[in-house]
């Protein structure tokens, strides 16, 4: 389909700059993008009939990594 309507995972690597140009980088646009990304993740890994611990564990692992990144300056003493 047209480039602006495809999701990030469906965009090929060479088309990435063109796709970024069609993005809406205003605060509402960014918030909408975050919301869409979260809903996609939620529907794919958590909102399933027989989900297991994997969906939430990925979230928690990501949170740990994020916290590590925040504290990196402090930890590397």
């Amino acid at each position, binding site marked *: 389909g047209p480039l602006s309507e495809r999701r990030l995972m469906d965009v090929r690597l060479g088309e990435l700059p063109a796709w970024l140009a069609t993005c809406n980088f205003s605060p509402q646009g960014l918030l909408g993008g975050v919301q869409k990304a979260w809903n996609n993740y939620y529907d794919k890994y*958590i*909102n399933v009939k027989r*989900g297991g611990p994997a969906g*939430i564990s990925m*979230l*928690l692992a990501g*949170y*740990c990594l994020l916290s590590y990144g925040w*504290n990196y300056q402090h930890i590397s003493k």
Partner: protein
Amino acid sequence: MNLSFFDQFTSPCLLGIPLILLSLLFPALLLPAPDNRWVTNRLSTLQLWFVHLITKQLMIPLNKAGHKWALILTSLMTFLLTINLLGLLPYTFTPTTQLSMNMALAFPLWLATLLTGLRNQPSASLGHLLPEGTPTPLIPALIMIETTSLLIRPLALGVRLTANLTAGHLLIQLISTATTALLPIIPAVSILTALILLLLTILEVAVAMIQAYVFVLLLSLYLQENI
């Protein structure tokens, strides 16, 4: 060396932006709002079951007027529980180790219970200051003691939560430092320390859950007396 152990409790900042807000908002991601389906996903089902359990337990001793507090007490319980448990993951920050945050939670809620009691049933609320059947000479002293214990409740609520979590995190950090320091020197003692660390982690998980529960339970108790 000792100073670096307390550094885990400094509020995280990235380029001067306080990140505590993100640590407070992250649990909201883990608790999705249940959509109105008959059969939801497993996470929503677990969450619903848990919320029903908590609300039932909290609301049984309260009268009808107290049921207005169901939303805030249940959400407080869920909030504290998720924040405490998330703080046990490596490198994460626990907002409830900050005394400022716990006092900000405890003081207004306690004050609300007190003012509710004083407004709706002032004599009954003040009557709690004197237990039944005290001998007459003891009455003045006992009233002062009970007033002090009443006024110290918000401080106790906040400090209890802060101290328990801070102490637990500190212990974990100390013992894990000891384990890694001893590993090249005496592996046997290091394994013993690792065992202690395992037991301590289990204790910390329990403490995290219990402290959240105690906070909310005491609040509901203060509410029972006053509503």
